[in-house]
């Protein structure tokens, strides 16, 4: 059971470079999320998606972009890497719960990507 798979696990970028963090899930979940976790802090939501073709901003979206062309994949793009984006990034997914568009189901997390911007 693969669950949520994130690649790469580690990456070092130079300031101004761009990269894409990959996330794929094989549970046919409708909802997918990107979080960042700074040292000593909880996770903060960057972007989320409620289904293919639909994305929306979370709490800290600046400097990032996402796309959701398929149910399985939800890549996160950094266009111009900045030191403030040094963090651990987590992708998560959950299935649709009760209440229509609202997901009250537990989120399943990937193992994270540790990203350093130097």
């Amino acid at each position: 059971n693969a669950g949520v798979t994130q690649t790469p696990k580690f990456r070092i970028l130079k300031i101004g470079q761009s990269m894409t963090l990959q996330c794929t899930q094989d549970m046919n979940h409708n909802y997918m999320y990107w979080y960042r976790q700074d040292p000593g802090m909880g996770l903060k939501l960057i972007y989320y998606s409620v289904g293919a073709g639909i994305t929306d901003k979370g709490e800290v979206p600046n400097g990032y972009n996402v796309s959701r062309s398929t149910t399985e994949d939800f890549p996160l793009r950094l266009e111009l890497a900045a030191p403030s984006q040094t963090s651990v990034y987590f992708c998560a997914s959950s299935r649709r719960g009760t209440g229509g568009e609202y997901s009250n189901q537990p989120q399943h997390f990937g193992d994270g990507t540790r990203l350093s911007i130097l």
Partner: protein
Amino acid sequence: AQTVTQSQPEMSVQEAETVTLSCTYDTSENNYYLFWYKQPPSRQMILVIRQEAYKQQNATENRFSVNFQKAAKSFSLKISDSQLGDTAMYFCAFMTPPGGSQGNLIFGKGTKLSVKP
């Protein structure tokens, strides 16, 4: 805006003993969900337990149980018979209700729990 506060940055417990981790939250909503997630050194985020605000009965999962006090906006986690494998960061999380962001989690800053042999 909803907030989640974990007032204990670090805690320790002896193996086989019981420990309680505190969590308070602030919201004006009546219907919501609360979670405890565990993050061991491997960095995985693992769901420990989940509580629906409309349920009065406290959730339990084997050695893990919660004390949910809705009026006080308190959601503590009790770990019984602590095991070395329970050593981890524990995050309390709040899920926003319908009408807001679609089910995203708001996390506290975490409590680092060390289980000592």
